[in-house]
């Protein structure tokens, strides 16, 4: 099963009731799959074939305030087009789930994945969880409803996964049993905002702006724990879990770690295994939760390792300080008295392959930094080097 099919099944198993959607590559197979599931009578939902992403999110908001469980999906330009609407669900505390099937933004991109489309929405208040493969997609979609709808959270959640590498690559995927998902995820009862006649609650006035924003911030704070809690419960029931916001992989005794996000993590696992086998002292950290950002977790990593190397599949023009993830990591680490070295790589931009050789190169550069105690450049654009043979 590929990532898009997995997301569609995740929505089906979660009993999403309203699905407003507009097609965009590489998300199209997801929404076609949902249309097929509905037309075959396998899934029971109101499917609204809207005329654009701006409307897709607006209709999602409308359905959510009226108390329905809502799922949608988009990518790249589509996410940008709906941005105006993306601020609404966090502010109104609506637990909509939307898959962001990552794809580069025009014009220097193409149809393949990088993470700028989702990362540029980091300030809107959506929870963002990055998935590595189809299994993680289906499981994360189900978990996302549970996280978002938790009374302590009430926030929209975006399971993110790379276009093509995850969306269109079939990997063995277990489909959870419907009755078990029903036990795990009870029907949605919405409490924060209600517009049904006779039940509606008026909203607060504008004098409460700072307070209302702080509420959203606090909800993100609480979400850190709840993402872990939900993941653990999921693990107990279904036998798979993802270690919450970050996963440390093959890190025992390592001096340094590479931090990856999305599909490249799979490749990185193999490279790290191989390098560990050769006695290289480097481990891997998979960043799953970008919002809320695992600040404390990175501080713990910062105390454990001598160097943290962030692999960014995105860039922030003019920042002169590496990609978006590395900036977040830097901010987290700044609070430490004894800071590790921070190495920044940019790679896989516009969806070009992140090869094993590139990962090996990044690992070697990081270990060299540990050895010399110095980081060569503020940010290393890996693809600008000729690294020779593919490993």
């Amino acid at each position, binding site marked *: 099963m590929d990532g898009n099919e997995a997301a569609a099944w995740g929505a089906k198993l979660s009993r999403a009731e309203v699905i407003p959607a507009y097609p965009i590559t590489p998300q199209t197979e997801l929404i076609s799959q949902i249309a097929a599931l509905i037309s075959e009578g396998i899934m029971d939902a109101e499917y609204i074939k809207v*005329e654009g992403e*701006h*409307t897709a999110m*607006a*209709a999602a908001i*409308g359905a959510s305030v009226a108390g*329905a469980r809502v799922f949608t999906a988009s990518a790249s330009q589509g996410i940008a087009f709906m941005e105006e609407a993306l601020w609404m669900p966090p502010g109104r505390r609506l637990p909509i789930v939307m898959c962001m099937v990552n794809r580069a933004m025009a014009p220097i991109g193409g149809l393949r994945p990088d993470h700028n489309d989702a990362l540029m929405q980091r300030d809107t208040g959506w929870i963002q969880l990055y998935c590595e493969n189809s299994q993680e997609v289906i499981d994360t979609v189900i978990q996302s409803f549970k996280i978002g709808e938790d009374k302590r959270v009430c926030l929209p959640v975006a399971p993110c996964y790379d276009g093509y590498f995850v969306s269109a690559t079939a990997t063995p995927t277990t489909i959870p049993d419907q009755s078990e998902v029903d036990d795990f995820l009870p029907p949605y009862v919405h409490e924060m905002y209600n517009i*049904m*006649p006779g039940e509606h609650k008026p909203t607060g006035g504008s004098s409460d702006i700072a307070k209302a924003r702080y509420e959203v911030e606090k909800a993100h704070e609480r979400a850190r724990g709840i993402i872990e809690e939900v993941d653990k419960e999921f693990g107990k029931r279904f036998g798979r879990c993802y270690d919450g916001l970050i996963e440390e992989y093959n890190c025992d005794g390592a001096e340094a770690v590479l931090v990856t996000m999305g599909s490249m993590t799979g490749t990185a696992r193999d490279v790290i295994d191989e390098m560990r086998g050769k006695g290289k002292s480097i481990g891997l950290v998979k960043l799953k939760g970008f919002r809320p950002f695992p600040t404390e977790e990175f501080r713990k990593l910062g105390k454990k390792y001598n160097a943290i190397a962030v692999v960014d599949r995105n860039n922030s023009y003019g920042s002169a300080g590496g990609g978006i993830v590395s900036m977040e990591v830097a901010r987290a680490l700044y609070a430490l008295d004894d800071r590790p070295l921070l190495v920044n790589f940019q790679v896989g931009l516009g969806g070009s392959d992140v090869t094993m050789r590139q990962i090996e190169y990044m690992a070697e550069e990081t270990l060299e930094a540990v050895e010399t105690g110095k980081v060569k450049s503020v940010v290393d654009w890996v693809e600008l080097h000729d690294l020779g043979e593919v490993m």
Partner: protein
Amino acid sequence: MELNKLFDEYYEKSYIQGGTTCCPGCGGPLFWRLALEVLGANTILYGDGPCAYCAIRNIKLPTFGIHFSFAADGATGIAAALRVKGRKDITLVSSAGDGATGDISFGKVSAAAERNENMIQICVDNEAYMNTGVQKSGLTPFGAWTTTTPLGKEAPKKEIPMILAQHKIPYVATASVAYPKDFQKKIIKAKGIEGFKYFHSVIPCPTGWRFDPAKSIEVIRLGVQTWAWPLYEIEGGILKLTMKPKRRPIEDYLKAQNRFRHLTDDQVKHIQAMTDQKRERLLQQDGKRIIF
């Protein structure tokens, strides 16, 4: 004292609060008063568009809005949720101003009409972006002064009711707050029809049209009498004029508002010719199928 009591009693029962954040003489609150009297309590109001929304803010029924670039779309989601919940008893009203309906959300209203969403889509039309301080919209009439058309608008008003009728929706109506009975009859009819109903009313805006607030109803009635804003409905593709006033010079309507005071005689003649043409065409087609 007596008058106060009358107001208090009315607003006690009404779904709109007494007092308003709109300008004196504004047609917005009157629009909603008339509409709510017949819509009833079991109604959800979706919408935005600042001036139209000024009045909505004082409504006691559930309302929800995002921004004026979001006409009809949120209501589409609400309609879907109501289907999921089997709530056929609730009337869903989606409201927008002329700038939303004719400009920034035009595609959204069109798409909701194409999908035949079950809602009454309303256009509260004050013929410009009034809340931002009188800027031209696609529904500003030819020749009208606004701050962005200081010499008068160059293009004619978009015929949104006719455009939406071409989407083959079950019901389209134009109305005026100067004719409350006609107005309310049309809302009641729309409420009883399944699918996408479009209801469009030009409302008087003394602030943007530049006239004495005390003359609001007089001015807006002149709009109907001079055929600047003809009243009709299109049900199942058949046009029916609900008001067929005798021909009256358009000048009577134009002279009543300072937004038209710069017009030359030639421009007035041009507007008259256009209006005559519209009137003749409508009278010819009255009672006939105009949507194919």
